[in-house]
C-alpha cells in the first residue's frame, strides 16, 4: 500500500519539478515528460488527471499549471504560473525591480499597439521611460533574458510580442490594468494582442482563429460580429 502511494507521489513530484525548472512546456516536451513518468502519451485523460492532482496539491502555494494557446500559430503549451501576487512572491529575485519596470513598460507599448508587436528599436527606447537609467546594451541583455525565459517572442522581422507564458501568467493583470484597452478575441474570447482588427467595427481576432473562420466562410471573408458583417478589411460604405 505504502509503496503504491510513494510511487504516485514520486510521479507527481517529478511532474511538478519539471514544470518548476522549465516554467513552460510545449507539446513535445510534455510528451517527453510523460514518457519519463511511464504515462501513456496518447491519453489525454491521464495527462489531465496528472495536471489536476498536481494543481490540487500546489494550490495552497498559489501555484497552478495552466494550458494556453500560442496566439499566432495555435500551438498548445502548459505553463506553471503564480496565481496571486503576494508580498512573499515579490521576494523572488529572478529579475530586479528595474527589470520588471522595463517589462511593464514593454507590456504597455504592446497593448497600445494595433497588432500586438513592437519593433526592437522601439523596445530599446523604452529605457528612457524607466526611473532608473538603463543603458541600451544592458537593456538588450535584459530583453535577451526575457526571450530566453520565454516571456517574449521575436518574429522573423525582430518584432517583439508577448509569449503565451506571459499571457497565461499575466491574464488577470492585463485584464485589470488595461481593461479599457485590451480586446478579447471575438472567436475564442481569450485576450487578443497578436491579431487582426476589423476595419469597420474594431473587433479583434487571432490570426489562427481568423484562419479557421475564413476557411469555413469560403470566398467572402466577413467580420464575425453580428452588428457588422462587413467584408473583412473594409469599412462599411456610408449610405
Amino acid at each position: 500500500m505504502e509503496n503504491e502511494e510513494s510511487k504516485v507521489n514520486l510521479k507527481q513530484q517529478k511532474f511538478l519539478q519539471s514544470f518548476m525548472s522549465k516554467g513552460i512546456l510545449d507539446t513535445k516536451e510534455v510528451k517527453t515528460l510523460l514518457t519519463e513518468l511511464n504515462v501513456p502519451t496518447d491519453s489525454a485523460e491521464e495527462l489531465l488527471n496528472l495536471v489536476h492532482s498536481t494543481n490540487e496539491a500546489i494550490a495552497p502555494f498559489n501555484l497552478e499549471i495552466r494550458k494556453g494557446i500560442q496566439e499566432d500559430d495555435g500551438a498548445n503549451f502548459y505553463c506553471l504560473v503564480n496565481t496571486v501576487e503576494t508580498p512573499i512572491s515579490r521576494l523572488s529575485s529572478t529579475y530586479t525591480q528595474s527589470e520588471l519596470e522595463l517589462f511593464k513598460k514593454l507590456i504597455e507599448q504592446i497593448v497600445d499597439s494595433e497588432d500586438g508587436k513592437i519593433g526592437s528599436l522601439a523596445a530599446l527606447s523604452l529605457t528612457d521611460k524607466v526611473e532608473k537609467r538603463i543603458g541600451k546594451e544592458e537593456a538588450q541583455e535584459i530583453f535577451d533574458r526575457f526571450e530566453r525565459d520565454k516571456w517574449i517572442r521575436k518574429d522573423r522581422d525582430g518584432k517583439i510580442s508577448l509569449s503565451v507564458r506571459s499571457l497565461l501568467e499575466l491574464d488577470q493583470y492585463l485584464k485589470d490594468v488595461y481593461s479599457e484597452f485590451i480586446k478579447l478575441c471575438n472567436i475564442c474570447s481569450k485576450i487578443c494582442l497578436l491579431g487582426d482588427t476589423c476595419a469597420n467595427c474594431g473587433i479583434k481576432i487571432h490570426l489562427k482563429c481568423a484562419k479557421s473562420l475564413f476557411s469555413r466562410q469560403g470566398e467572402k471573408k466577413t467580420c464575425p460580429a453580428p452588428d457588422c458583417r462587413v467584408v473583412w478589411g473594409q469599412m462599411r460604405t456610408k449610405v
Partner: protein
Amino acid sequence: MLRSADLDRAHLKIKALLLVNPEAYTISELPLIIFTMPRTSQASKQINASQRSVTDTTQLLSLSQSQASSKQLDAAELEKKVNEVVQYLLILDQKKVPIKKRDIIRVLMKDCSKSFSAVIEQAKIKLSKIFGFQLVELDEKLKGTFILVNNINHTWEDDSCIESLPEENAKQGLISVILGIIFMNGNVIREEDLWHALKKLGLHPEEKHVTFGNVKSLIFEEFVKQGFLEVVQSNEEQPTKSLYWGQRAHHELSKENALKLVCQINGTKPEDWLQQQQQINRSTAGQMNSADVSEPSVPGSSKPRRG
C-alpha cells in the same frame, strides 16, 4: 592524494567538458526559479507597488498580524502559516544561500514565533511529499539556517525534463570539480594546491574568467556563502587557507558520486582508489570521523580540523 600527473591528465578533459557540457557534472538539480510578475488589481493601481522592498514587505505583513508577540495558532491559522513558509522557502532557495530562521520569523511569524517548530515541521513534510525537496537544518558555522535538497534527483532517466540556466550549470560543474579535488586530496586542500589544480583548467585567482568572472570571489565568497565549501584560516605566521566540503556539499553530493565523478574525468575506476573507497564504506556505515581528514602533503602546515 591527487598526484600532479593525474591533474595533468584530468585538466584537458575537464577543460573541454566544463566549457562544452557542464551538465554532465551537475550535483543535485536545484529547485527552481519561480518568476513573479507584478499583478493583482490593488497592487497595480497603487503607484509604487513595484518599488516595494523587502523591508516594506515585512511591514505590510506585520500590519495584518496581531500585536501580540506570541500568539497560539489554531489549526486553520497554522495551515496558512505553513503554506506561507513553504512559499517563502521555495522562493528564497533560488539564491542558494541558506535561509535564516530569524528571517523566516521576522518576515512571516513575528507574532507567533513560538509556533516556529510546529510550522517548520509541517513545512518539511509538505515540501517532501508535494515537491520532493528535503528541508535540512544546518549547524556549526551555519547554525539556524535551512537549505532545500532535492530528494529525487537521481531518479531521472531523461535529463531534458529538467532545465537549468547555462550559468548555473557551469557553476555546478565547477563546484563538482572542486569538491572532487578536495575529496581526492584527503577531504581538505590548501588554497595554493587548489589554485595549482585550477590553473590547469584555465582558472586563475587574478584573471577574470569568461564564464565565471572573478573566480577567487566565486570560490571563497559565493560558494562558501551557499554552503558548498568551508574555508578555515590557519593561525600561523604565514596564514594559509584550507578548503573543506561545506555542509550543503555533504547533503547534496555523496562521496560515492564524488569518486565516480573524478574517475569519469581522469579515466580511472572507483576500485582503483582504496582510501576513498574505505571512506565511502565507512560513511555508509556511520558518520565521518577525524581519521578521514589526512595531513596535507607539505610538512609543517595546518593540523586536521576535527580531532
